[in-house]
């Protein structure tokens, strides 16, 4: 059966065409939606699109490195909620008297990084598969937030931190610039550092990487800490956007982030794809959500459309011909 898509792909020029598939999907989506509702290409809407993509993009940057290694990080929601919790409890809020200003932001990002670091330790030192280890970290993070926030929502009243979402620089909310900065940083790490190449090498074939002198343990721990760093930034942005933090602030973000990474063309098996793919993946998911509202698609079938899009995007972009076994 796997021969048929292979032949179709060959017709269009094989792998080269395929690597551009996500971009093509994005462009086709944009054109279709813009034809159906010209409001889509209004500047105001593009700003809103960028704004709703900010948090998912930052999250997905971190997740990309983990998925590139062939691992998975399920702790996205837990880490994000810990970072948002730390931020809100240390900045001006309506729950306690703290006012540490931008130190709270720093602390939140450090907290996220620490969560990731621990995930890395759990995977490498205790030799627990990332799927289980990070699942545990997810609930540890969630539990910590529930406990510290006393189960309720705490408001963030620090005006300068809220400006991340409310203040605009060159027409875009600061949060968007932060997310873009996160993307640039991730791109530099992936394409211009040893760490980035080692992560790809581990995802491609861990044994070969080890034999070529890659310190697998160190790279894995660093990658998880790096992912935690991005989740921490995302937590800060999410709390700034919503003006509050509650334990479930991360609800649904894991699924959105994994979807974005995979739709962008990064293989769950590792070693293929990268942060540029993920940028496109995040845009596809965001544009799709925006477009479905603009087209007035009934909420009762939106999820179905989303599911179809995911399958279509992955079908177009992944080189499944090379997969001898599909699990």
């Amino acid at each position, binding site marked *: 059966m796997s021969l048929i898509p292979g032949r179709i792909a060959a017709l269009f020029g094989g792998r080269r065409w395929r690597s551009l598939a996500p971009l093509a999907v994005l462009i086709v989506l944009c054109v279709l939606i813009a034809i159906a509702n010209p409001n889509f290409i209004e500047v105001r809407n593009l700003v*809103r699109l960028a704004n709703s993509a900010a948090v998912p993009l930052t999250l997905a940057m971190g997740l990309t490195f983990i998925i590139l290694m062939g691992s998975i990080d399920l702790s996205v929601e837990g880490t994000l909620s810990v970072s948002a919790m730390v931020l809100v409890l240390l900045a001006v809020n309506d729950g306690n008297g703290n006012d540490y200003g931008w130190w709270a932001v720093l602390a939140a990002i450090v907290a996220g990084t620490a969560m990731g670091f621990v995930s890395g330790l759990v995977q490498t030192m205790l030799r627990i598969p990332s799927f289980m280890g990070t699942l545990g970290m997810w609930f540890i993070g969630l539990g910590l937030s529930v406990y510290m926030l006393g189960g309720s*929502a705490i408001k963030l009243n620090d005006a300068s931190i809220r400006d991340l979402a409310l203040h605009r620089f060159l027409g875009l909310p600061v949060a968007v610039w932060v997310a873009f900065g996160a993307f640039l940083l991730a791109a530099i790490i992936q394409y211009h550092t040893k760490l980035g190449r080692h992560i790809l090498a581990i995802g491609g074939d861990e044994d070969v990487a080890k034999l070529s002198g890659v310190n697998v343990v160190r790279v894995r721990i660093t990658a998880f800490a790096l992912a935690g760093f991005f989740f921490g930034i995302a937590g800060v942005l999410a709390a700034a956007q919503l003006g509050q933090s509650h334990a479930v602030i991360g609800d649904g973000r894991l699924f959105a982030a994994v979807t974005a990474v995979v739709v962008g063309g990064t293989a769950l098996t590792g070693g293929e794809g990268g942060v540029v793919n993920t940028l496109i993946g995040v845009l596809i998911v965001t544009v799709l959500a925006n477009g479905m509202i603009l087209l007035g698609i009934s909420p009762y079938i939106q999820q179905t459309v989303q599911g179809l899009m995911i399958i279509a995007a992955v079908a177009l972009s992944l080189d499944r011909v090379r997969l001898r076994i599909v699990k």
Partner: protein
Amino acid sequence: MKDTKNFTVNRRTLMLGATAGVAALAMPSVLRAQDKPTLVTSIRSLSNPYHAVWKTGAEAYAKWAGLEHVTLVSEGNSEKGIADIKAMLAKTGGNMVLNSDPNDTPDARPIVEACAKAGAYVVTQWNKPPDLHPKDFNPNYVSHIEFDGISSGKTIAEILFKTIGGKGGIVALGGLISTTAAIERKKGLDAALAANPDIKLLDFQVANWKSTEAFDLMGNLLTRFGDDIKGIWAANDDMGSGALEALRAENLAGKVPIVGVDGIKTAVDAVRTGEFACTVTSDPFWQGGMGLAIGYNAKIGKFDPTKEPPEHREFYGKAVLISHDNVEEYYKTNVDAKPEIDWNDLWGRVTGAIRT
């Protein structure tokens, strides 16, 4: 900040409560063999503000009545919810009063059956199958309490319509499609819309009860309808507050009124600043305490459930409306201080029997 102090006290109480709960569970039943029944609260989770307040109310009643109180949390897992209740029944030998918000509709039956078998008294809230009735489990299944979602959805819609001057377009954010509360509140909205032909429902979208989803959704709705949106109807406050932050990002906060249901603190604050037109609450503090009070009074024979009229066995409680007119008063008595409730007034908030 007055508020600050209040919060830390609350948290400490919460922690103490949790510790006490764990300790009580750890103690062998012999130690706790006593005449006074144990009060047991079974709720979904402590990570949402609604159930956190529920637990505070339950603890307030237990303290007032001088009884031991244990909170069981199902974490959205029906099996765990039921198993924990059965374990408590075994531990107390049935000498307990249960106030339960069953995780899911079908859960109510095994919970009630287990309690009736063990001789414990039970009150359920929100969820029960339509063919399960307190009168079929006399005297153990004392009452079932719900809040009329249709009336809540209608009340807030009417206030929203009045706030925007009786005409114009609104958008509505609904809850998780399959839940009873979401369906009923939407019915209420539809009823209010039918009575106000000058109000146009631009779009009804679903944000699954969550502020994060409502935030993204609202941005998209603004693109589609722009200035035509004169008001926002949200099926709960959390979604309403997400929509509010989306408005704030576009400098529209306070210009487009929002209404919601639940009465969470963010929403009450927003009613004070005029960003929300109103919210309506079932008063989880009352639900947490009064559910136990009704069960306990039946258990000690203060009243005989079998002789109570049907509207005391299955009833809609009275929801509390918080709008511009009464928000300062509400804030003083419910947010700054712990609410004062007359725990002897068992039937004071009955508004009628549940529709069948």
